[in-house]
């Protein structure tokens, strides 16, 4: 009798969630996700959503604000991991779906943002700052993303019946809204550069040219600033390198298990009643 109950209980457990929950608790201590280097020790930065280490010219830099924000993120992900774990072990409890909703997508969004921030930063540095960009493409991009997001939300509410498909569509809609937000950020940057730096950053110093070349999230490149004055010329070369680190691989695994756990997890009791 006891064996049968145990078997039933084990069968009900959301195993994806158990793995995701444990990985989420471990993740803040599994190392940094991304590194950024200028020269050989001019700037060395390694970061993840849970911490940052920055050394500039051989000196370690510390920011209380960054430290506290990363501490908040660490506590947040540990709480989320515990919630996902409890929700997965007891999926039929009334609170289970709520706890799963709270925690399951956190690592996914952290990983997305960690990739998007350097990508957008590099795009702004390489394409927007030199000037000559038009606003139209970014406004169009934002508009199309919003239209698709609203349309898919409407269609999902109308036609999707299964909980997993609704959750997947919710995630896709949020990704589209994030893309729209990024287009808006780029549009604002293009507008500011067009308004205040009509000939791009190179126009800041008379006789100077700035050839910005920043890698997109991973890789190496050199940014060169040249300036001519009188009969002389000066050139400053900044080698820049970036790369994803081992902690990011674990973040991807965690995000995949969390999303699977979220999709697989039973819905809240009110949805069951609706059925």
């Amino acid at each position, binding site marked *: 009798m006891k064996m049968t109950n145990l078997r039933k209980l084990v069968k009900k457990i959301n195993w994806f969630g158990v793995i995701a929950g444990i990985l989420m608790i471990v993740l803040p201590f599994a190392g940094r996700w991304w590194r950024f280097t200028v*020269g050989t020790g*001019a700037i060395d930065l390694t970061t993840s959503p849970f911490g940052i280490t920055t050394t500039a010219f051989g000196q370690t830099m*510390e920011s209380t604000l960054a430290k506290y924000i990363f501490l*908040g993120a660490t506590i947040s992900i540990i709480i989320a991991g515990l919630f996902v774990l409890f929700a997965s072990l007891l999926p039929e409890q009334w*609170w289970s779906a709520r706890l799963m909703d709270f925690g399951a997508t956190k690592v996914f969004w952290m990983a997305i943002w960690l990739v998007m921030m350097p990508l957008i930063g590099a795009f702004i540095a390489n394409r927007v700052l030199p000037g000559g960009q038009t606003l139209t493409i970014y406004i169009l991009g934002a508009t199309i993303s919003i239209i698709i997001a609203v349309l898919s939300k409407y269609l999902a509410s109308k036609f999707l019946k299964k909980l997993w498909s609704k959750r997947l569509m919710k995630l896709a809609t949020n990704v589209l809204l994030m893309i729209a937000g990024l287009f808006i950020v780029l549009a604002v940057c293009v507008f500011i550069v067009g308004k205040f730096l009509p000939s791009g950053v190179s126009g800041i110093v008379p006789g100077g040219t700035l050839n910005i070349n920043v890698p997109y999230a991973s890789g190496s490149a050199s940014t060169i600033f040249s300036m001519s004055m009188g009969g002389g010329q000066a050139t400053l070369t900044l080698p820049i390198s970036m790369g994803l680190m081992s902690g990011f691989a674990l973040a991807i695994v965690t995000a995949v298990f969390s999303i699977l756990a979220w999709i697989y997890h039973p819905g*809240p*009791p009110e949805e069951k009643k609706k059925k």
Partner: protein
Amino acid sequence: MDKGKVLGILLSLLSILLVVVPIVAAFAAHGWDPKATLLGSSNPVETQFGDLQNLNVENMIGNVSLEDLSSLSLTDLLSVLQGRPITATAQVNSPLSFPITIKDVSGSLVCNDDGVILGNFRLTNAVEIPAHGSKVLSIAGTIDSSGALADIWNHGGLPSNIGLQNVGLKLEIYGITLEGTFGSL
């Protein structure tokens, strides 16, 4: 109210609190001073490069020695005129609190009166000077014999009013390369 909804609201509040509380706590810890909260007490750029404004290049250069041309034999003198390099050494004392690599120093010696190039010089090897350390720079120079002879002919004697032209300097600090060329000095 439905307990599920109450839990939902509480979880949303928890999310907000986990973002807001650390920010407020960080500012409160530094007496609401935004600069101290953001950057902390250390400013590496100021610490490392603050003393650059008091830099005196003349004080950095110690013993300079040049190969004694007067003691050269006639054969050596002829080989110098035919392009054998003359070496000059100079001790450089760095007051800087960071290491610096002098990768290249080059240029030409020119007679400012008639613009004739008398010779060229170049750093023999890149030199890494440690923070607050000193190293000896070795610069090899060659005489442009046709230019030098033409200048002697123009002046009816040894060249005077000698200046530097096309001086190039290449420095590396923490992997960042700074390269400069100056038309004339």
